[in-house]
C-alpha cells in the first residue's frame, strides 16, 4: 500500500510545489454531485461543445472563406463546370476529396444540432425545478446568453458554406436586419458592408465570428458557468430527510462521478460520430451554389431557428407606416420582436418570479414541477406558444405529406398560438394543484393511520 501511494506521490508533489493546486484539487475531487440523471443534461451540451471545437478545428484547416468565383472541376458529376464561390467549392472538396472530411463535416453539424437540443433540455430541467432561484440567478443568466449565442453561432456556421439553402437564409437574415425600426437600414448596411449581397468581406466576417469570436465567448461563458455551479454547489431533489437548503447529500466527483461523466463524454462523442457517419446532414452538393436569383421550395433554417420562420410566415401582410416613413417592416414581428420577447422573458424570469411570489430566500432544494403550479403552468404555456409557432413554420410539409390546405393551416395557427397556451396554463396549473392535493390527502391519511395505531395500542 505504501508503494501504491508513492507512485502518485511524486507527480502530485511536483505539481503542487509549482502550482499550489493540492488544496483546490483536494476539494474538487470530493465535490458532491446530486444523484439524478437530469443533472447530466448540461454535461451533454458541454461534451457536444467539445466535439464541435475538435471537428471545427479540423474543418478550418480545409475551408476557404472566400466568395471569389471559381469553376468546379472536382469529382461530383452534377456540378461539373458550374460557377460557384471558393467557399462552396472548398466545402464540396471537404465532402468528396478529403478523406474523412465528410465524416468531420457531418459530425460537426450534428453536434451543433444536438448542442442546442441539449441546452434546451437542460434549460427545461432548470426551469421546471426552480434551479434558477437565488443564489443561482447569475449562473442561469449566463446559460440563457449561451443559448442565444449558440443559435447565432450555428446560423453563421452553416451560412458560410454559400449553398442555395443557407444563401436564402442569409437573404432573409438581411431582410430581418432591415426590418428593425428606424435603424434597420443602417444596421444591415453595417453588417453586410453595403446593400445585399454586401461586400465580399461579409464572408470573412462570418468566418472570424464563427471560428474565433463566438467560440471564445462560449468557452469563457462555459468556464464562468461551471465555476459558478461549483461555487454555489449543485442543487438537489429532496430525496432524504438529510437533504435541506443548508445540507446536501451527494456522490463525490472522484471516484464516484468521474467515470460516469467521462463515460457520458465518450457516449456523446460516439452518438455524434455515429450520426456523422451514418445519417446524411446538409448535403450541400444536392442544393447547388447560391445565386440571388434562385430559390427552392421547402427551404428551412436549421431546427433551432425554425421558430423564427414560423413567426415570419404567420404574420399577415402589412408594414406599419407613418406617411412615407416605414416604421415597422413586416419581418420585424416574427424575426426580431418574437425572439426578443422570448429572450427577455427567459432572462428576466428569476426576477419576475421573485416579484410575483415575494420569495427572496436561498433555495438549494429543487421543486418538483407540481410543487410550483403557477411556474409550471406558465412554463408549459410559454413553451407551447413557441412550439406552436415553430410547428406553423412547417405547415408546407404538412401540405405535402398530409394534404392539409396551407392557407387553412395558417389561419388555424394564427388562432391556436394564442388559445392553446392559455388553455395549457390553466390545465397544467390545475393538474399540479390536483397532484399536490392528492399527496396531501395521502399524507394526512398515513398520519391518521399511524396515530390511530399508536392510540389504539
Amino acid at each position, binding site marked *: 500500500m505504501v508503494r501504491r501511494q508513492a507512485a502518485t506521490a511524486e507527480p502530485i508533489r511536483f505539481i503542487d510545489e509549482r502550482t499550489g493546486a493540492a488544496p483546490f484539487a483536494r476539494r474538487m475531487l470530493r465535490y458532491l454531485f446530486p444523484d439524478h440523471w437530469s443533472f447530466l443534461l448540461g454535461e451533454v451540451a458541454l461534451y457536444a461543445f467539445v466535439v464541435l471545437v475538435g471537428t471545427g478545428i479540423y474543418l478550418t484547416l480545409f475551408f476557404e472563406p472566400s466568395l471569389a468565383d471559381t469553376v468546379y472541376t472536382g469529382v461530383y458529376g452534377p456540378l*461539373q463546370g458550374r460557377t460557384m464561390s471558393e467557399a462552396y467549392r472548398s466545402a464540396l472538396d471537404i465532402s468528396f476529396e478529403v478523406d474523412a472530411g465528410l465524416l468531420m463535416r457531418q459530425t460537426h453539424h450534428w453536434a451543433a444540432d444536438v448542442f442546442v437540443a441539449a441546452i434546451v433540455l437542460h434549460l427545461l430541467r432548470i426551469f421546471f425545478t426552480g434551479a434558477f432561484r437565488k443564489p443561482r440567478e447569475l449562473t442561469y443568466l449566463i446559460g440563457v446568453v449561451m443559448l442565444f449565442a449558440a443559435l447565432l453561432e450555428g446560423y453563421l456556421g452553416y451560412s458560410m458554406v454559400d449553398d442555395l439553402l443557407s444563401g436564402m437564409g442569409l437573404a432573409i437574415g438581411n431582410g430581418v436586419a432591415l426590418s428593425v425600426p428606424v435603424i434597420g437600414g443602417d444596421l444591415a448596411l453595417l453588417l453586410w458592408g453595403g446593400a445585399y449581397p454586401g461586400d465580399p468581406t461579409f464572408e470573412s466576417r462570418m468566418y472570424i465570428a464563427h471560428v474565433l469570436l463566438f467560440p471564445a465567448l462560449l468557452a469563457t461563458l462555459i468556464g464562468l458557468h461551471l465555476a459558478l455551479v461549483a461555487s454555489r454547489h449543485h442543487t438537489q431533489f429532496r430525496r432524504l430527510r438529510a437533504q435541506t437548503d443548508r445540507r446536501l447529500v451527494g456522490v463525490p466527483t472522484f471516484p464516484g462521478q468521474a467515470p460516469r461523466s467521462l*463515460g457520458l463524454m465518450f457516449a456523446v462523442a460516439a452518438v455524434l460520430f455515429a450520426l456523422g457517419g451514418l445519417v*446524411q446532414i446538409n448535403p450541400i*452538393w444536392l442544393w447547388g451554389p447560391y445565386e440571388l436569383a434562385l430559390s427552392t421550395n421547402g427551404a428551412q433554417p*436549421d431546427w433551432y431557428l425554425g421558430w423564427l420562420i414560423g413567426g415570419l410566415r404567420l404574420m399577415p401582410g402589412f408594414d406599419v407606416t407613418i406617411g412615407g416613413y416605414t416604421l415597422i417592416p413586416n419581418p420585424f414581428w416574427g424575426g426580431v420582436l418574437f425572439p426578443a420577447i422570448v429572450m427577455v422573458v427567459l432572462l428576466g424570469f428569476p426576477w419576475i418570479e421573485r416579484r410575483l411570489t415575494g420569495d427572496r430566500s436561498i433555495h438549494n432544494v429543487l421543486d418538483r414541477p407540481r410543487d410550483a403550479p403557477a411556474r409550471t403552468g406558465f412554463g408549459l404555456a410559454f413553451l407551447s406558444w413557441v412550439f406552436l409557432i415553430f410547428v406553423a413554420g412547417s405547415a408546407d410539409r404538412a401540405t405535402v405529406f398530409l394534404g392539409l390546405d396551407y392557407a387553412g393551416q395558417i389561419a388555424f395557427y394564427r388562432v391556436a398560438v394564442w388559445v392553446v397556451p392559455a388553455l395549457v396554463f390553466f390545465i397544467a396549473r390545475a393538474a399540479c394543484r390536483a397532484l399536490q392535493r392528492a399527496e396531501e390527502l395521502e399524507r394526512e391519511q398515513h398520519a391518521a393511520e399511524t396515530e390511530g395505531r399508536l392510540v389504539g395500542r
Partner: protein
Amino acid sequence: MRALLAAVLLLLVVAPPAAADPPPIVRPANAGGLSPRELGAQLFAGNCARCHGSNGEGMAGMGPPLQDAGALAADFYLRTGYMPLGEPQEQPERSRVRFREPEVRALVDYVATLGDGPPVPDVDPEAGSVSQGLEQFTEHCAGCHQVVAEGGVVTSVRVPPLDRATPVQIAEAVRTGPYVMPKFSESDISDEELASIIAYVRYAKAPDDAGGWGIGHLGPFPEGMVTWLIAAVLLVAVCVVIGKRVSRP
C-alpha cells in the same frame, strides 16, 4: 385533454375536403367488339364528356376544352391517374390508373383527333447531362418542386414530388403545364435542355447520398426530427442509465 380535442376539431376544419370518391369508370357493354376508335369515342363519352363536352369543346365551370390538348396532354393526364377527376375544383393527384392499357391508348388517340395538339413526345434521357439538368431544374422547377424534386407548396396547391414520374411524363408535364404548373415550349426549354432535366430528375430519385441515410433530401426539417427523435432520445437514455449511482433498497 380539452386542448387536444379543440386542436383535433380545428384540424378537421383545415383538412382536405374528403376527396370525392373517384367517379366509376364507365365502359361500353360490348368493348371487345369495338374498333379502337369507337372504343375511344365511347370511353370519352362515358367518362370525359360530362366535364369536357361531348366533342371536347369544354364546359363552363366544369372542364377546359381539349381540342388543342393532343395526345401529349391526354397521355399525361391518363397515365398519371390525374384524370378522370371527381370534382372540377379538386386538385388532380397521381393515382392508380383505372383504365386498362388498350383503353388508355384508345382514349389518347381519340383526344388527339379532336384537334391539332402535340403528339406524345419522344424522350432520350441519355442525351441529356445531369449537370445541365441541375442548372435548368433549379432555374425553372425548384421553386415549386424543391431542388431535389421532393415536392412543395404553391399556396395553396400541393406540388407533387417527382419520384414516380417517368421520363415521358416529365416531358409531357413540362410541355403542357398540368393544373397550375407553367408550361414550357421548345423555345423556352429546348428538347436538349428537356432531356437534361429528365436526366436530372431521374438522378434525383436516387441522388448521391455520400453522407449515409438520405432522410428525404429535404434538409433541416428531417434533420431536426433526427436530432430530437433519435439523438436526444439516445442521449437521455444514456443519462438515465448512468444517472443512478447509489443503489437503493
